[in-house]
């Protein structure tokens, strides 16, 4: 019998912490970004390029750019998170990974949408983890994430 493990990966991008339910995570890779084919890059859609992944091209997206986080290079972290997606797997680049923790460590927190950028803020949920607010990263809701309104 297969049971769903209720845990979250905590990762960091610039000064922001994120919580990613591991049901949305396929794989973590380090140093594979050297193989990135940047000829397919499309900055308007936050596409950094493609990587070979299980015989298929894996689009790698610039999450920091999409969220307008400061930073000189989208490749600062060199950690690739391969995520589940409605249109197939995709990759994002993280600066740092803290670890994987049980859901019981995370408490849901609310912020009024009024205070979020009305021009397409792609996140809505927060969790409190060890006295820190983290943005919930929801790969299954990222289909239109990369298209600016």
């Amino acid at each position, binding site marked *: 019998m297969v049971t769903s493990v209720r845990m979250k990966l905590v990762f960091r991008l610039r*000064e*922001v912490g994120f919580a990613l339910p591991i049901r949305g995570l396929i794989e973590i890779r380090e140093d594979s970004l050297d193989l990135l084919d940047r000829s397919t890059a499309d900055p308007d859609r936050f596409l950094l390029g493609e990587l070979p992944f299980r015989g298929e091209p894996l689009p790698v997206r610039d999450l920091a750019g999409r969220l307008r986080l400061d930073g000189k290079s989208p490749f600062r972290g060199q950690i690739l998170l391969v995520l589940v997606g409605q249109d197939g797997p995709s990759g994002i680049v993280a600066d740092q990974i803290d670890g994987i923790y049980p859901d019981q460590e995370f408490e849901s927190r*609310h912020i*009024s949408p*009024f*205070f979020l950028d*009305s021009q397409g*803020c792609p996140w809505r949920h927060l969790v409190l983890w060890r006295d820190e*607010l983290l943005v919930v990263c929801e790969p299954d809701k990222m289909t239109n994430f990369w298209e600016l309104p």
Partner: protein
Amino acid sequence: MISKVALFAVGRETFALRVEGILQIVSDVRIFTLPLLRQGIRGVFLYRQSTVPLLERRLVAGARENHNEDSPAGHCMIVFSTDAGPVGLPADKILGIVDRAQGREEEANDEQKNCKAAGTVFVCNGDRFPLLDVEALVRSLPQ
């Protein structure tokens, strides 16, 4: 019940605020940076079970000063209730809380209106404190 007014400073600017909307004045709070908040919001902090946006200093005090948004230690936040939810106002110093009867309200001059004071100042002991309309401040947040 006697209505009261809180007097506080942000940089070199001083302001008045009706105490009815004040939920608490807190210090030593941790400010979290979140992506894609509306312009004019410096970050958020935790207050009880709420995630409270902190307004930027320049939004409160106007653009006349070169405000350092990375507030140094010792500053406090005034947690204020609004229709959109609680918001935090930055404050460097709480000057006092006085009865409204100790002063009077007058129309603000043009310079004070630039400080989002909604056209009114609270005059107390000869000093003029722009009376902040926090609902108007929140409504003025850029899209």
